[in-house]
């Protein structure tokens, strides 16, 4: 028997995967091959170390469990599907609120402005908010800028909502694989509503 073959069988034998017939043939080879005996002895020594138990203290395990429990609690509050839906809803919510607020403000001021006085309900000169909003009614660019300003103010008040959107799916390689068919379907329906149809395929 060639040594390369013997060493392959030796590897199987160390793992308890060598059949009796081959075991016997291997034993015959080892009895006459010093190099293969040395190879076997080296592997036995190596695996005595490689296969040793990796101990952790009770404190380490307690800390591990506390940390896992905290993450399970967070999971219970949000859930994996809930986290994705919430992240998507946040992505659309604030611009929608900001635009609606800006539109409502413009409409209220426009309707509230006395007819014919050439001025604004809040009075003041050409630099006043009311004057600006009046201009916005006729100039879409200015209207858009006002919306952006309102949106930015809301963002400042809420402390930067973008930072809180969790990209759980992107960070977790097994996230999508871990969802059940029902969860995937629910996600697809909700996302389609959020983005106005034509979402998930």
């Amino acid at each position: 028997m060639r040594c390369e073959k013997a060493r392959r069988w030796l590897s199987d034998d160390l793992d308890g995967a060598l059949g009796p017939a081959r075991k016997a043939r291997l034993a015959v080879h080892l009895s006459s091959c010093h190099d293969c005996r040395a190879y076997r002895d080296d592997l036995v020594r190596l695996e005595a170390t490689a296969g040793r138990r990796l101990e952790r203290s009770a404190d380490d395990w307690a800390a591990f469990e506390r940390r896992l429990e905290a993450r399970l609690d967070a999971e219970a509050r949000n859930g994996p599907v809930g986290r994705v839906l919430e992240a998507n809803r946040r992505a659309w919510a604030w611009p929608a609120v900001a635009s609606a607020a800006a539109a409502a403000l413009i409409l209220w001021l426009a309707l509230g402005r006395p007819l014919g006085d050439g001025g604004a309900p809040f009075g003041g000169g050409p630099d006043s908010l009311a004057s600006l909003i009046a201009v916005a009614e006729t100039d879409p660019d200015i209207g858009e800028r006002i919306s952006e300003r309102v949106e930015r103010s809301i963002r400042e008040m809420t402390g930067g909502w973008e930072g809180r959107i969790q990209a759980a799916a992107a960070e977790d390689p097994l996230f999508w694989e871990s969802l059940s068919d029902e969860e995937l379907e629910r996600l697809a329906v909700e996302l389609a509503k959020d983005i106005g149809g034509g979402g998930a395929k």
Partner: protein
Amino acid sequence: MDDGPEDVLVESARRGSREAFVALVRRHRGRVYGLIRRMVGNPVDADDLAQEVFLTAWRSIPSFKGEASFSTWLYRIAVNLTLSFLKRKGREKGRVELTERAIAGDAAAVEGDSPERDVGLHEIARRVDEAVGTLPPHLRTSFVLVVGQGMSHAQAAQVLGCPENTVSWRMHKARKLLRARLRPYLGEVRS
């Protein structure tokens, strides 16, 4: 609840029992951590990844069908997450190119300190762990499952989703490479 039969715990966890799931975590955390620790080579990453394994298992357990054992399923998650982690990090800890010259025993191709230096058991263990960390991921995974975790070729094959003969070949290849890497120090290892 910790002492209950595993299939009962798994079924309870599938139905949403966190207590049952935590009992399963306590049963398997040592082996999962050990597997990952041997794969990534440091305790901090191993701890983080072990957390991810159990979180992923908690999310996925409602769809666990019991076709494989719970431990096999858990190991599969651990292996996949760890390999993804290693790929993402773009590193294999302390990896060196093991050339054919090193396998043939050419001392010039083997890196490391002089073997004449007296080394303790901890140092040997460190070198062994380091050498395991230099194995290519597919060889390292098989080696860690079989030698580190005490699995049979058949069990490791089930975790890895490959034929048993593939595990056998990988074990042979891994041992050959490790022996070449560690040969100068193996005389110091106490059995």
